[in-house]
């Protein structure tokens, strides 16, 4: 059983046949008994018939021409871009084929050659270690080196042995010397004078830091007739 309110909410769908069979029967029953709802349906039907009887408005001729012109332009544009895309695609395929044909015969030998070269180089490189030789007049490669004795004119009258810590400036000259504590001391002033005079006549290679001459200490052991040991 449907009341007027429910029926009026479904009249539009009822017109279009968009209600369930059961609802349709209920609506038809209601319309048979309710003249106001039946009149409402007749009015809605009149609205629909009036809408459908409205004449179709003719398409303006200028619009027809404009649309044809638009279609022609757009079709030409589409063909142009389709052609351009096709040409680019074909050129890319040709280039890819050419590269493939060029590289395929040499790809395996080239890869094998590269692997062999790397393998052999690795083997040979290991054999180069230890071959480097040192020459006396090489520029010292170490970052910091100690002073070394270049020439000596030393004359001790006996076979005594003396160990000295000598301070050498950056030009290789002796500026000072001391006898290390654990190595005893000079017994007489005469002996000290002789050592000083002798060291004045001794030239040294200066110490270096990063290849540049600098001052520094060196420990030297003199043994009888100019036999020298040097400790940095």
């Amino acid at each position, binding site marked *: 059983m449907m009341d007027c309110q429910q029926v009026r*909410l479904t*009249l*539009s*769908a009822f017109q*279009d046949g*968009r209600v369930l069979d059961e609802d349709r029967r209920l609506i038809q029953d209601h319309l048979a008994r309710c003249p106001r709802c039946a009149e*409402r349906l007749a*009015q*809605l039907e*009149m*609205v*629909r*018939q*009036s*809408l*459908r*009887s*409205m*004449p*179709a*408005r003719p*398409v*303006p001729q*200028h*619009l*027809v021409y*404009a*649309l*044809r012109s*638009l*279609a*022609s332009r*757009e*079709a*030409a*544009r*589409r*063909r*142009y871009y*389709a052609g351009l895309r096709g040409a680019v695609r074909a050129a890319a395929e040709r280039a890819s084929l050419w590269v493939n044909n060029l590289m395929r015969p040499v790809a395996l030998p080239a890869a094998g050659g590269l692997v062999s070269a790397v393998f052999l180089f690795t083997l040979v490189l290991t054999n180069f270690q230890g071959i480097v030789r040192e020459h006396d007049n090489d520029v010292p490669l170490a970052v910091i080196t100690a002073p070394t004795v270049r020439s000596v004119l030393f004359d001790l009258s006996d076979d005594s042995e003396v160990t000295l810590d000598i301070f050498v400036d950056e030009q290789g000259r002796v500026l000072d010397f001391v006898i290390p504590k654990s190595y005893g001391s000079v017994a007489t002033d005469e002996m000290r004078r002789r050592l000083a005079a002798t060291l004045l006549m001794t030239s040294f290679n200066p110490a270096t830091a990063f290849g540049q001459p600098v001052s520094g200490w060196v420990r030297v052991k003199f043994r009888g007739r100019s036999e020298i040991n040097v400790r940095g």
Partner: protein
Amino acid sequence: MPPAENQIGLPEETAAADWPGFGSEERLLEGLRAGDDAAYEALIQRFQAPVFQLVHRLIDDPNEAADVVQDVFLKVFRGVTGFRGQSSMKTWIYRIAVNEAHNRRRWFNRHRKAEITLGGEEEGADRTELFSDRGKTPYDWTLHGEMRTAIEQALEELNPVFRSAVVLRDLEELSYEEIADVLEVSIGTVKSRILRGREALRRALMEKLEPARGLAWSPQTASD
């Protein structure tokens, strides 16, 4: 036995017969994408009149409607590459048309509301004259041209949301499913909009017809 319907309620033989020379919508689309002049011509021949009718019912100015139709077809031609066929071409084109018409209507309301036309008053006077004949019954009105003008006037005054639903249903005769697809709303919303649109039109028409009803029973002068 009614013809079999496809997913959107369009009869199959109608869908195939819409594209003479192409057989199916897919082949027409291929032609459009390839820039085939015949495909473009077929599309225009098939849709220029219905799209113009639809847009003109949603926009009252015929010149504006013609401009909008050109915009619609331009969007269709440019968008055909991206059209994936989730809906039929018909509902796709109608959707573009409805959206373009609404956009133009909004723009029109914003920019031209303040403009004054010289013929405005005359037009209003003409409309009052539409109902000068008080002697007809409602059924006489339906047969008369003035009735059509009255329904057109009522349609113009209808809310655009309901108007598009009613136009698509009663003038373009789309199914509820197609309308839902065009307007991108649910079937329930379509039902509601059609109901409210028709109700508004019915009320508007009855208001215009009520005086005539009353006078229809009044005594007529000897000169009539």
